[in-house]
């Protein structure tokens, strides 16, 4: 891309005489502008890397609805009582102070890809030369019959961290011994593949730690199998015998109706009752990606695997949960990895920076019980039109306690690392 940029720059300098005749204010403009929508693992990383590595040559604006950002990753550990909410909530202050990023707090509601502007909910427009969309996911409420945004105030999804996570914790902590939990797990593809099952582990940990003997956790899953399944099921049997019951679609036969107020999940097999329902519906790319017209019919955004550029618009990059990530799972680690490829290519488009070949990596850690951590990871490269897995690993069944503890400690180190990488 740097070759193209130089060529383009050459064309521009050819118009030097005309530029001299322009008013000073116009000539003083204009550092190239990158606008990043979404300030999570993808967006914060992209904004930081573009601003930092271009050393002021590119004007970077980061748009996010929140003043601060609560990470969805490690929110299960908050649920389990291992972290407080403050420890997973982070400020954008360093991005502004250290790298000169402009942080805009508000909702981006539309993108005019012809005029190259982002429109905010208050009507303001922000122009861009390159746009990075990292909006995360949007929940498809009606993918679960009977569920809705209103019902989520009773039966939280907690799949976007913040008030929903607090609500789920409050309800979990308020359960009496003998009261059950019913989780409806999401269909593929969704944010954080091992997330629902780590959450089950953390909820079981809370029940076990306070000595509840009579409560059960029912997991109603639309998938026939799930991430790290053998590891989770081994862990549940070992740490929480008899507490967790997982039902795949061949057993429950389909979810017919959720009644949040009544606390029931009706399936073909049976009606499951819970004092706490945790309903995680199907997902698609965040609303701004749909509004920008860069999502496909399945609701996610196809990209060029060599650059993270939208398949529908060369001036737009889509990263993180919102993109079609090929073999990469929708995780914070993936989003952070994709952000670096997008940042590099955006810089190469707009300055004389060099673009190296894309490479991606991911590791997902999960906690099953105190000091019992497991992980799955892989390296990826662009191949056959998608981001393809090159090589990977997964924790083994029956690993010794020292290794599992080291894996958990590594995950804590990773959390501090990625937070420093995103916000520091």
């Amino acid at each position, binding site marked *: 891309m740097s070759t193209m940029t130089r060529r383009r720059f050459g064309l521009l300098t050819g118009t030097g005489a005309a530029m001299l005749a322009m008013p000073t204010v116009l000539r003083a403009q204009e550092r190239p502008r990158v606008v990043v929508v979404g300030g999570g693992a993808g967006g914060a990383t992209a904004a930081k*890397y573009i601003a930092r590595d271009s050393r002021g040559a590119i004007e970077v604006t980061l748009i996010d609805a929140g003043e601060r950002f609560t990470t969805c990753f490690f929110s299960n550990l908050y649920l389990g009582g291992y972290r407080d909410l403050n420890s997973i909530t982070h400020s954008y202050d360093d991005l502004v102070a250290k790298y000169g990023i402009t942080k805009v707090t508000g909702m981006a509601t539309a993108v005019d890809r012809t005029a190259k502007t982002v429109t905010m909910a208050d009507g303001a427009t922000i122009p861009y030369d390159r746009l990075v969309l990292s909006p995360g996911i949007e929940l498809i409420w009606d993918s679960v019959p009977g569920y809705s945004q209103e019902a989520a105030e009773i039966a939280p999804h907690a799949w976007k961290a913040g008030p929903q996570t607090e609500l789920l914790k409050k309800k979990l902590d308020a359960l009496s011994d003998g009261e059950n939990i019913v989780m409806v797990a999401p269909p593929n593809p969704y944010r954080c593949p091992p997330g629902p099952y780590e959450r089950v582990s953390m909820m079981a940990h809370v029940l076990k730690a306070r000595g509840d003997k009579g409560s059960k956790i029912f997991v109603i899953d639309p998938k026939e199998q799930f991430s790290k399944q053998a590891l989770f099921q081994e862990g549940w049997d070992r740490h929480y015998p008899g507490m967790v019951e997982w039902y795949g679609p061949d057993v429950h036969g389909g979810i017919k109706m959720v009644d949040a107020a009544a606390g029931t999940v009706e399936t073909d097999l049976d009606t499951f009752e819970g004092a706490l329902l945790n309903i995680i519906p199907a997902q698609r790319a965040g609303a701004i990606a749909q509004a920008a017209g860069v999502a496909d019919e399945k609701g996610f955004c196809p990209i060029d695997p060599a650059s993270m550029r939208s398949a529908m618009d060369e001036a737009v990059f889509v990263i993180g949960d919102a993109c079609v990530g090929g073999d990469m799972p929708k995780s914070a*680690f993936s989003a*952070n*990895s994709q952000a*670096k490829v997008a940042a*590099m290519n955006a810089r190469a488009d707009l300055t004389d920076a*060099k673009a*190296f070949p894309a*490479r991606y*990596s991911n*590791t997902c850690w999960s906690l099953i019980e105190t000091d019992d951590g497991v*992980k799955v*990871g*892989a*390296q990826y490269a662009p191949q056959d039109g998608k981001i393809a897995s*090159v*090589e*990977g*690993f997964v*924790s083994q069944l029956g690993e010794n306690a020292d290794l599992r503890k080291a894996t958990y*400690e*590594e*995950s*804590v*180190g*990773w959390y*501090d*690392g*990625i937070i*420093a*990488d995103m916000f*520091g």
Partner: protein
Amino acid sequence: MVFCNIGRALAASFTAMLVFTVASPARAGDATAASQVEEAVVRTLLLDADPAYGEYLGGECVTCHRTSGASGGVPPIAGLPAGYTVRALSEYKFGLRDNNVMKLMATRLADDEVAALAAYFAQIRKD
């Protein structure tokens, strides 16, 4: 005659290695890995390292390893001497160090990439 002597000596030592290999395969495996590490370290340190390329590749490292050099769960790598980083990565690559994330990372790195990373992390200052 001189050549013959060297030839005989080489043949003798080769026979000894074969006996050693058959007698204790695990230790022989370690010995092979150790010599692969030594060769890789020498080969890599002789390369012209490109820290700018290392900075790009290091994007994969700093998701876990903080550039401030702070540790906790994940060891610090910022500011380490290049020779140390080259050796550590080579040991992961050839199985003398055991962490599946690092093995995966190291296995995929070519010599020039290891050299670039080592040069980059050696030059970054701890904040």
